[in-house]
């Protein structure tokens, strides 16, 4: 048996994923029935049963989705612990690239995180209304998310069963390190332009949230996730590691760096999610939640301050830039 599957964290992770998937599968079956037969204007026994059932099934989905969101950082932690078992891997970067399923799985998990969060918001406004106005919409949306969840569950199984402990993998210095001077940044950017774009996009998200420009908020948030990722890996990360050649998104999740990676990536993903969530709720459902807006602004500001703080502290301590 593959020794990866005997690792405690992997057992806990896969078991949790399986239980949640089974719950979501039951919810999927019930939701299909709901979508087919739902008619709020009908005063039939069947409709009454459907309403009771919908409340139960939405509670199950809510519970499973919240746990799935909590499982994302645990998945990253699991990957990180596997670096002790996989030869050549010094952190999660090598483990995630141990086979072809790793990167698509991580990307899919982040996409599901965003979509699930949106589902939670739609569910929340639907439950507050008296006539379940968005029940059909959120049911169809859940069915779509369930397709992605099925792909994710399959990828989970394929990924963990295909990690070889005999084949050496590349460490992060090979994956993200100096590639002989080739430009690894997107859109032909260099570091100064990347940083300008980073701070300008942050300003644009804040301004668009304040002036309720939903489309601009969504577009700038999506771009900020991409630019933020590259800025952290290729610039801010080097100040976290205090080494100009160390470029890696995973090493900062380890204890030598006080697990700061969880805060960095968590703030970036949650901040942009709340910004997108607020913009979509505002544009399509006309619900203006000042709380969502404040949470987005606070989280993104904390993210930018945290990244910039590392650079500033390094400069004050050493008097030079990396």
């Amino acid at each position, binding site marked *: 048996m593959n020794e990866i599957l005997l690792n405690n964290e992997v057992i806990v992770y896969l078991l949790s994923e399986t239980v949640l998937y089974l719950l979501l599968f039951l919810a999927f079956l019930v939701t299909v029935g709901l979508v087919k037969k739902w008619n709020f204007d009908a005063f039939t026994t069947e409709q009454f049963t459907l309403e009771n059932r919908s409340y139960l099934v939405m509670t199950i989905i809510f519970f499973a989705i919240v746990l799935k969101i909590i499982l994302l950082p645990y998945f990253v932690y699991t990957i990180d612990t596997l670096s002790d078992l996989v030869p050549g891997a010094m952190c999660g970067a090598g483990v995630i690239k141990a086979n072809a399923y790793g990167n698509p799985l991580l990307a899919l998990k982040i996409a599901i995180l965003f979509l699930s969060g949106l589902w939670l918001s739609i569910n929340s406004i639907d439950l507050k209304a008296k006539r379940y106005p968005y029940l059909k919409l959120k049911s169809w949306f859940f069915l779509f998310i369930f397709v992605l969840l099925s792909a994710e569950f399959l990828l989970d199984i394929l990924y963990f069963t295909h990690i070889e402990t005999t084949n050496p993998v590349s460490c992060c210095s090979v994956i993200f390190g100096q*590639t002989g001077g*080739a430009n690894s940044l997107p859109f032909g950017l260099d570091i100064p332009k990347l940083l300008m774009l980073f701070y300008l996009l942050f300003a644009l998200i804040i301004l668009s949230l304040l002036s309720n420009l939903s489309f601009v908020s969504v577009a700038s948030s999506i771009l900020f996730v991409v630019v933020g990722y590259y800025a952290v890996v290729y610039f801010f990360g080097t100040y976290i590691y205090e080494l100009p050649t160390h470029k890696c998104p995973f090493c900062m999740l380890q204890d030598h760096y006080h697990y700061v990676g969880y805060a960095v990536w968590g703030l970036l993903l949650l901040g942009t999610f709340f910004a997108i969530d607020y913009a979509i709720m505002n544009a399509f459902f006309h619900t203006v939640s000042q709380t969502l807006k404040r949470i987005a602004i606070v989280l993104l500001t904390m993210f930018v301050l945290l990244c910039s703080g590392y650079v500033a502290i390094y400069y004050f301590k050493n008097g030079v830039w990396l």
Partner: protein
Amino acid sequence: MKKIVINLLTFVVVIAILVILLLSFGNDQGSKYVYKGNTAHKIIKIKPKEYQCSECNMNIEALAYEAQIITQEGNTYFFDDIGCVVLWLKNHKPAIAKIVTQTLDTHHWVDVRKAWYTRIAHDPMGYGFAAYEKKKKGLISYDEMKLLMLQGKNLHDPFVKKKLLGK
């Protein structure tokens, strides 16, 4: 008044972002991987560090090991190592006009299928494979080299390295 200021600031920031993106797209400092428009299917002479390898992204610096794939439509892809050519062809299937490599013995451009390969060269990627124009003892054919490369039986494998180099 406050709303006008915020909208004006938003407009200025959007313009600044677009300017940076446009400047970057038009920037020549970015990576260069493909030479387009080579419909005559000629071998393109390049300078060290001018192009990056399409497979491993490294700068092509040691021109003695350089290889090129020229497609029917005139795209030329550059590689720093013959091993990278094999790996790239595993995932890409363009209509190929020519695949050529530099040779270590004669420094000519030779069709990869007509060249012979050593397993113990000091090539940029450390796979050990490099082309020779003239057949010598110990050299292997392209097909054999390709098979060994795809199986991972190159100098990256410690067992192969020990067998071939004794260390």
